[in-house]
């Protein structure tokens, strides 16, 4: 099951919209909830139990935290002189409840995603010490979207704990927040304060929302069906048999994988945001032209934004601004100065963020390596920033100059390619093997002469279609970067031009889409994380 199933998008969703609009306003959220649970059960069957358990735990934990907040405030009113002691006492109570909520939710995630990884590695260790005991390796499917909805669940109880929001008394709204069907498979990881109110508002589906929604969905289809699905065979062939290919072909495979990942994931986000828009729900953008970033650090504020923001809010700042770390920062600043002083606590927090970010994507050494690779790049970027700034000043290099900006983007993109190579490689060793071949056996002449690039399921026409579509997507990105709201601008055009654009989108998907015999559509990549 994928959001790109035409039957789902062009038959099931319109029927849902019709029913949703026909029922009275107060029942509309229930329709969304029933549909979301129906889809979850359709995909994950009885594993819906774990989603329900997550909903119940965060509902009760949040309400208990709220109760403690209210009780604490009452006590402070009665005994204002004891304010500090009361606050401390209740902080401890709240922390215990919060930790309980976190442990329950994280344990589900750990059980489904990481148990086998840890069991396998423990078995290897036991083997090493000749201990005759082995953990059983079990194989089971995880509930769909568990990595996404668990982070949403944690953000909800953490926000209530920090008193950023109040606990919701309506369990159905909490349930809809966690299970809303467009977001369940690949996010984005929304915050309760961003979507819950609108989700439960029961806004009518308007003509404008309908048109805007389908425009966005069609754009997502262009990315997925014309580009990502077309590249699937090439990517799988190169990564699975890299030792038989030249460095040039491997590089094409790596670039192909990065493009495929971007098109699949951002295309899915187009669909998610489009579906949310039908119901008047503004789901936050998860991508903001990532390849226009100046460096890796900025790249991560533009790619999978909701995940980066989650780690920043709930891991980076809580770790780097813990009491001990703050003391460390103050001491280090006095010795190392303003730039390098906070770097120690920043680096420790960054290490925690990227270890968890790597592992969040999957239980495997390639993901952990990928996380450490990003950590190293960002840390080095921070260390060398003052040196680069000074060098640019001395050499009178204008950093806003277009040539310098292009140089920055190309350098950053090369780093991204290497990261994605390890991300997709079957093992870390294979990743290094591929990287080595790119640098030591590039062999462009022989690659072109032997037509190796045309043995990967794509002919010249396919490469041409991919490149032209990418140019169109690049132009759209450039316009967005310059703050043009393309959808609003299209809606202002007269009806003939508007429908010409719609027809062009539909026809391009039908004519240039990669489907039928010989094509295997890309599985929703992020749904596996």
């Amino acid at each position, binding site marked *: 099951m994928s959001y790109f199933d035409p039957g789902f998008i062009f038959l099931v969703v319109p029927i849902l919209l019709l029913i949703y609009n026909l029922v009275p306003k107060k029942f509309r959220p229930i329709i969304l909830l029933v549909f979301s649970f129906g889809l979850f059960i359709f995909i994950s069957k009885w594993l819906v139990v774990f989603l329900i358990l997550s909903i119940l735990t965060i509902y009760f934990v949040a309400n208990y935290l709220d109760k403690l907040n209210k009780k604490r405030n009452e006590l402070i009113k009665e005994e204002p002189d004891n304010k500090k002691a009361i606050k401390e006492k209740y902080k401890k109570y709240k922390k215990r409840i919060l930790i309980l909520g976190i442990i329950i939710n994280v344990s589900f995630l750990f059980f489904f995603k990481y148990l086998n990884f840890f069991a396998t590695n423990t078995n290897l260790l036991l083997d090493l010490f000749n201990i005759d005991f082995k953990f059983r390796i079990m194989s089971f499917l995880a509930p769909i979207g568990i990595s996404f909805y668990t982070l949403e669940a944690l953000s909800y109880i953490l926000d209530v704990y920090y008193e950023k929001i109040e606990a919701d008394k309506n369990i159905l709204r909490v349930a809809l927040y966690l299970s809303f069907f467009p977001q369940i498979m690949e996010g984005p990881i929304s915050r309760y304060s961003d979507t819950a109110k609108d989700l439960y508002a029961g806004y009518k589906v308007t003509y404008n929302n309908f048109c805007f929604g389908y425009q966005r969905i069609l754009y997502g289809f262009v990315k997925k069906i014309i580009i990502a699905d077309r590249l699937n065979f090439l990517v799988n062939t190169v990564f699975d048999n890299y030792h038989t290919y030249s460095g040039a072909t491997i590089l094409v495979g790596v670039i192909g994988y990065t493009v495929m990942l971007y098109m699949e994931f951002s295309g899915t986000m187009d669909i998610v945001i489009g579906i949310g828009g039908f119901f008047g729900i503004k789901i936050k953008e998860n991508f903001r032209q990532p390849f226009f970033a100046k460096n890796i650090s900025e790249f991560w504020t533009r790619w999978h934004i909701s995940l980066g923001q989650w780690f920043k809010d709930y891991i980076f700042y809580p770790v*780097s601004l813990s009491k001990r770390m703050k003391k460390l920062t103050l001491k280090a600043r006095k010795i190392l100065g303003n730039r390098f002083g906070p*770097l120690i606590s920043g680096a420790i927090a960054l290490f925690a963020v990227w270890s968890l970010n790597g592992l969040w994507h999957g239980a495997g050494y390639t993901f952990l390596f990928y996380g450490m690779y990003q950590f190293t790049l960002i840390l080095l970027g921070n260390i060398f920033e003052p040196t680069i700034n000074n060098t640019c000043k001395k050499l009178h290099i204008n950093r806003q100059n277009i040539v310098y900006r292009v140089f920055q983007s190309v350098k950053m993109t090369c780093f991204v390619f290497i990261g994605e190579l390890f991300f997709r490689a079957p093992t870390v060793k294979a990743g290094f093997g591929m990287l080595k071949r790119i640098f030591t056996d590039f062999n462009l002449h022989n690659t072109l002469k032997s037509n190796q690039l045309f043995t990967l399921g794509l002919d010249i026409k396919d490469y041409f279609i991919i490149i032209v579509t990418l140019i169109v997507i690049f132009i759209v990105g450039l316009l967005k970067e310059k703050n043009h709201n393309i959808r609003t601008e299209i809606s202002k055009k007269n009806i003939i031009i508007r429908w010409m654009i719609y027809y062009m989108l539909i026809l391009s998907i039908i004519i240039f889409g990669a489907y039928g015999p010989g094509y295997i559509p890309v599985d929703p990549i992020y749904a596996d994380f």
Partner: protein
Amino acid sequence: MERLIEILEELQPDVDFNTVENLIDGRYLDSLTILSLVAEIEEEFDIEIPTVEIIPSNFNSAKSIWELIEKLKEQ
């Protein structure tokens, strides 16, 4: 407020903190500078800034940082 401007200028000498209103969104203050700033403000004004308050709207201008300090002092 003057002391706050001094702290900010010490951390980022090239920025005019009396006028700039997009310190976070304009990337004048990065995550590392925020770490120094928070530690310094807490020590100077004897307050504790909860991590939940570290959001762009609280740190985008010297004025908004000052308002945050005032709010936390009252608590």
